[in-house]
């Protein structure tokens, strides 16, 4: 599962409706439109979760109280940490995705 798909950047729906003669072209267009909208809706929710979690993790790992900007914790240094923390977070997401999906394919989820 690539991160590109996370933000819905893929141009085509991942499960295109096969050409079925039982639907007229207008119905097929509607189904495809609904599919795209649903995928967008989920992609937005997924991206929000990523931003929330990464912010929480990187805030906790990179900043220390007191959170004054002009104190010894300079903003530039904090930003550097946040940048690399986010990069690490995205790589972690991919690593965990690989392991989890691999395991799901071995055995179906128990719940």
């Amino acid at each position: 599962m690539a991160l590109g798909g996370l933000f819905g950047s893929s141009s085509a729906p991942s499960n295109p409706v096969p050409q079925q003669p039982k639907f007229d072209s207008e119905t097929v267009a509607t189904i495809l439109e609904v599919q795209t909208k649903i995928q967008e809706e989920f992609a937005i929710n997924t991206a929000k979760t990523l931003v929330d979690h990464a912010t929480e993790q990187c805030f906790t790992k990179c900043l220390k109280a007191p959170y004054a900007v002009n104190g010894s914790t300079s903003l530039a240094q904090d930003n550097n940490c946040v940048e690399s923390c986010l990069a690490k977070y995205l790589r972690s997401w991919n690593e965990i995705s690989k392991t989890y999906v691999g395991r799901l394919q071995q055995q179906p989820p128990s719940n």
Partner: protein
Amino acid sequence: MSSIPNQIQTKINTISSNGEAVAQVNNIIQVEEQKFQIQQDIHNFTKLCFNNCININSTNILSADLTTNESQCLSDCVSRYLDVNLQIVKSLQGGK
């Protein structure tokens, strides 16, 4: 996404007289919900395991790459979590 946004529901309503089309849409929703749920699982695992496996401090903030140890820890973290999950389900089912 527990409920379908109005904008999408309105679209679905325009094909509501076509039972097969509605079935197709419901199938699409089910597939997308499954994919979404798996991604949410991955988000939760990442949050948990990142916190436990990734050590960022003042001497170690610049590397954006994961070290071998970090990658291994993340992968093991998910695997062990799922092991515990399975064991708990089994225990609650009275297997042990």
